[in-house]
């Protein structure tokens, strides 16, 4: 079932407005445009693939039901990502995994060999708390205080986790670039 071409060229705001009138084809296009972003964000926050996809579907259903609440002043991508992030944090807290937040699951820091930052691999070297906070702030666009409210931790703690996480990512990128330069000189 192909969507009309004018829908394919419509902006997210236009598609959201059409969805609010009950146009499911318009919403289908929004799903196709942004599902990759949402699914990737949830995986980067620490969700296993099956859970990430389940929550991503929940997020899109929730977005459909509350499409009237979307304000085109912000991007649809940011809006749907924040819905998904909230759902993940709520599910994760309900499953009592909050106690694992401060537990570190850092793996060996194996830098990539091409001088670029492989985000998915890089996030794996962060602790649960750092990965979650970096994903929520840098990935989903929450402020430190908003993320702190969702995670039930002070904004200052979120800021610390984000800073440490970004520092680790930066060191990883620098190490990767150093490797590339060494190979080029050798």
């Amino acid at each position, binding site marked *: 079932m192909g969507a009309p071409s004018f829908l394919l060229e419509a902006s997210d705001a236009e598609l959201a407005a059409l969805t609010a009138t009950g146009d499911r084809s318009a919403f289908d296009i929004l799903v196709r445009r942004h599902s990759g972003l949402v699914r*990737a964000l949830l995986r980067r926050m620490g969700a296993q693939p099956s859970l990430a*996809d389940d929550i991503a579907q929940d997020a899109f259903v929730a977005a459909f039901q509350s499409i009237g609440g979307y304000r085109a002043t912000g991007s649809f991508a940011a809006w749907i990502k924040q819905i998904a992030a909230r759902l993940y944090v709520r599910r994760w807290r309900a499953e009592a995994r909050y106690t694992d937040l401060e537990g570190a699951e850092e793996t060996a820091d194996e830098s990539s060999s091409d001088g670029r930052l492989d985000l998915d691999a890089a996030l794996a070297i962060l602790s649960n708390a750092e990965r979650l906070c970096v994903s929520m702030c840098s990935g989903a666009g929450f402020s430190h205080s908003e993320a702190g409210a969702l995670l039930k931790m002070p904004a200052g703690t979120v800021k610390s986790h984000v800073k440490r996480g970004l520092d680790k990512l930066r060191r990883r990128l620098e190490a990767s670039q150093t490797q590339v330069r060494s190979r080029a000189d050798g």
Partner: protein
Amino acid sequence: MVEDAFEAQVEALFNDAPAFADAEAFAGQVRERVARVRRAGRWVHGLAWLLGGAIAVLQLAQPSFWNWLGGAAGQGAASLDQAARASLGALSATPSPMFCAAVLGGSLLIAYLTVVLREN
């Protein structure tokens, strides 16, 4: 600042979505779930209509209502009431309030479902 530039770089990486091989299947699953949610919502609305219609008819079928109507409109209204009741004689002396509620509520539900099915 260097830190701000790196943070912007990380944000850009987060916005760089990978392609999922099962993207089409995922979209189909979302479509199905949205359809289920809409159907469930329609049943809730339909039941609400039925219940509202039943309550309305029960209220209308109260004897005090007919007494008030007859008293307010005088003899003409009383005659009209008697004529209406007589025309329903085949259904026994007076249709029960529950019967009226069922008829009206069922009619409303059928009308509502007709609209829903036509929309689908």
